[in-house]
């Protein structure tokens, strides 16, 4: 395996809730290479969001290892805050900070963590906002924005940290249908620019078009992992066939 190209390696991750009563993840392993776009699909409750949230330890796995750049994040002696800086995350419900303006949302982490001076962070914020055409919203508060605008700003907030990978947790699921495309377009641009991305999504068209690899999860397990063409056109696993017959 091309190890120096590998950014994330997940080994045998198990996540249990209520002392083992609920098994959200049941021995998952996967790798993500630099520059790769991986889409994770599956029905609700399949464990795909839990999988994604384990990647930056928002969920702490019950057992298993998550190597990011060669460091095992599941090791209790690792300072997870240092590694999270390099992993941007975008949530279903945007989670912009409502008491801060758009620009303050973007500048908060880089400035507070002393990665950038205020002037540098502002310049970077302006550049990113200009790129998504929302520079004029810099001094507005998030509750004045549409859902699509909020999500694009949430993406920009994560990008301002100059992460090595972007994790997307159903980024378009909470959007009105007419706003889905503006967010997907931005994600498509990111992918083209070479950003490493892991995307949990219900947008099969997007997964097929943008992803280098699609992972199908069900019952807390990875049942199939393949190129989009093979996974969508020639599914092997019966549960994947069943899932595709319902969503396509």
């Amino acid at each position, binding site marked *: 395996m091309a190890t120096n190209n590998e950014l994330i390696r997940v080994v045998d991750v198990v996540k249990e809730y209520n002392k083992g009563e609920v098994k959200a993840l049941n021995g998952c392993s996967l790798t993500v290479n630099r520059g790769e776009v991986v889409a994770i699909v599956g029905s609700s409750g399949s464990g795909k969001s839990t999988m994604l949230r384990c990647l930056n330890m928002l969920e702490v796995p019950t057992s298993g290892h998550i190597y990011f750049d060669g460091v095992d994040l599941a090791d209790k002696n690792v300072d997870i*805050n240092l590694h*999270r*800086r390099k992993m*941007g995350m975008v949530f279903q419900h945007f*989670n912009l*900070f409502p008491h801060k303006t758009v620009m303050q949302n973007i500048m*908060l*982490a880089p400035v*507070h963590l002393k990665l950038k001076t205020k002037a540098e962070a502002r310049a970077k914020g302006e550049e990113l906002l200009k790129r998504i055409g929302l520079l004029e919203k810099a001094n507005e508060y998030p509750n004045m924005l549409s859902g699509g605008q909020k999500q694009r700003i949430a993406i920009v907030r*994560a990008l301002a940290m100059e992460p090595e990978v972007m994790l997307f947790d159903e980024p378009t699921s909470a959007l009105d249908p007419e706003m889905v495309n503006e967010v997907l377009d931005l994600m498509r641009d990111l992918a083209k620019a070479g950003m490493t991305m892991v995307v949990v999504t219900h947008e099969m068209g997007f997964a097929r078009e943008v992803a280098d690899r699609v992972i199908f999860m069900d019952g807390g397990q990875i049942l199939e992992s393949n190129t989009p063409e093979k996974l969508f056109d020639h599914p092997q696993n019966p549960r994947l066939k069943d899932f595709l017959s319902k969503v396509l």
Partner: protein
Amino acid sequence: MWWSNLFKNLSPASFFNFSFLPKYGSYFWKGIAYTLLLAVVSVLLAIIPALLLAMMRLSKNKVVKGLSGAYIAVFRSTPLLVQLSIIYFGLFGAVSIPRITVLGFVDISRFIPGVVALALNSSAYVAEIFRGGILAVDIGQTEASRSLGLNAWSTMRLVVLPQAIKNVLPALANEIITMVKESSICSMLGMVELMFAAKTVASTTYISLGPYVVAAVIYFCINYPASKGIEAIERRMRRGDKQ
């Protein structure tokens, strides 16, 4: 004054006997000032310990959580008068505070023990207010902040608390109103607040009811408009959130 005649033929026990007012009105004014001072200062003093207690209560560490829980339980489950007496005679019986009078009517040797007792009591209630306010902030806010690499304390300070404090301001103002009423108990220990003024006037003039009626009217005139005002502010804040 022309209206002093109105009270001439009333019995000292009459509900409407206010003949003491011209002569003793100043007692009530000072009482009002002392009461407001007690209430506001004790709630302000309670804010920092309450914030600490609230965060301890939300901690994952069982010892820290238990300590805070015990403090809150003790202060919420015993009468204020008992707490006040223990702190006044116990704690401040051992430490002597010089009898210095500030602002012309506040003897700090009595005021400080009183305000400390009220603040300790109030911090237990305010802690619960803060805890509710912190829990009301969506967990997604914490997750977003942590995912950007901020640690737990920075997340609390920069993201969660600013939103929580805005949520709890009305409840905090209500706590001051509660304190305006509760501080009447300090009269038992000789603090010259509003209730003490009423008692003094009643025992000096032998008019047994009127002074207390006046005190009640004053308490009402402070607290009722204040609580209505807070309600109005709360309504406006909620409208602001919806936008």
